[in-house]
């Protein structure tokens, strides 16, 4: 009996783990932020490997908490991205009429630049000439390099708990 039980458990184990790996290999996601930063390790402290543009499709190789190990389909290099930068939906960057029709009936497609976009903002400004985006644009230009954050943590004697 022990032998049969062992065989049964082994088969079940391989069947289940095999399925999991397969499922992860099939998972394709899209970058849903302006600048998709890819890092060498599953943490914001990880070195920046590359940056991927909005809408880029990547395949998810593995996950660790909220971090996904991703790879561009035709490339061999991979890196880690936080899941909040990724979407399950396919993002169509320059949607044509057929994409629009497809998006209307599908929950799996997002049209880039649809709805509220730069054109709408410009139209809003022409209606409200007193509105001023100078400081909003200045705010957006402020980018804090990761080494400055690290120095801030060190100087302030902060001890961050491991990222989950």
């Amino acid at each position: 009996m022990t032998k049969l039980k062992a065989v049964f458990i082994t088969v079940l184990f391989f069947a289940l783990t095999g399925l999991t790996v397969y499922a992860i290999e099939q998972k394709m996601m899209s970058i849903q932020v302006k600048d998709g930063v890819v890092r060498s390790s599953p943490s914001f402290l990880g070195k920046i490997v590359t940056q991927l543009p909005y809408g880029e499709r990547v395949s998810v190789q593995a996950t660790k908490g909220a971090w996904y190990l991703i790879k561009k389909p035709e490339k061999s290099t991979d890196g880690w991205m936080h899941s909040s930068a990724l979407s399950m939906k396919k993002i169509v960057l320059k949607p044509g009429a057929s994409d629009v029709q497809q998006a209307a009936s599908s929950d799996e497609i997002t049209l880039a630049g649809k709805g509220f976009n730069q054109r709408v903002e410009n139209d809003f400004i022409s209606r409200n000439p007193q509105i001023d985006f100078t400081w909003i644009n200045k705010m957006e230009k402020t980018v804090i390099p990761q080494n400055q954050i690290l120095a801030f943590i060190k100087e302030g004697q902060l001890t961050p708990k491991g990222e989950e």
Partner: protein
Amino acid sequence: MNRSSRRQFLRLTCKWSFWSFGVAPILSAFLAGCKTIDSLSKNVPSIQIGDINIDTKTIAENTKLVAHSFEDITPEQEYYIGRTVGAEILQKYRPYTSKKANNYINVMGQMLAQASDRPETFGGYHFLILDSDEINAYAAPGGLIFLTRGILKCCPNEDAVASVLAHEIGHVQHKDGLRAIKQSRLTTALTSIAITGAKTYGHEDLSKLTDTFEDSISDITKTLIVTGYSRSLEYQADLAALNILQRTGYNPKGLVVMLNQMKTQLKPGRQDFAKTHPSPDNRLSEIQKQTAAYSVVKTPKARQTRFEDALKSI
């Protein structure tokens, strides 16, 4: 294999086949339910069950309409909404232009945002101090966060400042700004967007879309500046803040320190936190359970020195 273990094996097999052949089809039928209603509506306009007549077309249409919620707003659209909400806030307040103070707030804010459940937004998190004695802070959708000199004066140390920033990051994380947009606008906007698409819409479509955009912006700014979010959204933002503080190594009691200070400085009847937020006492009692275990805030000297140095002009 003896008799009893064979029986055990058979029982196990039966159990597994029950789950795979019995429950799975029921589950998948349930999951396919929406599709069924959809396809029903095309062929059969109504179903008669006893005396009740069910109009399947209406059910299908309503299902589609209900699906149009704030969750359907893409991060890219959230970004454009946030920019204009931010510009509207800056119609009411002047920015406080000290580079040193704003840089301090941005480095701290960025670190806190990275520890939140939503560290990445379309355009990222950015922070700005407003030149006002009023006690206030705002989070525009997508991560543009504003805080007044007045609320910074309620902070005797860095851990307290971090609690204000983390609370606002909590609102961005929970998309509370987008929740303030009335459902009717979403239904109109998202339906017309779905039909007309992006690059193809003409002048009239653009004009309609801008109407909806203007209305949505006004829903959000009215909530942020005049009416405030619901109490429960505020408490949830406080809980998110406690989490972020704890993850970054700040003392979650920083929020307690800030609220106690705010209590002494808020003046009733003013258009500030007193009007748009639950009272500091209520917020304190809501977070008591989570903060009770922590000791009083004692910040290291270096942290206190840089805090005082960065914000001394406030």
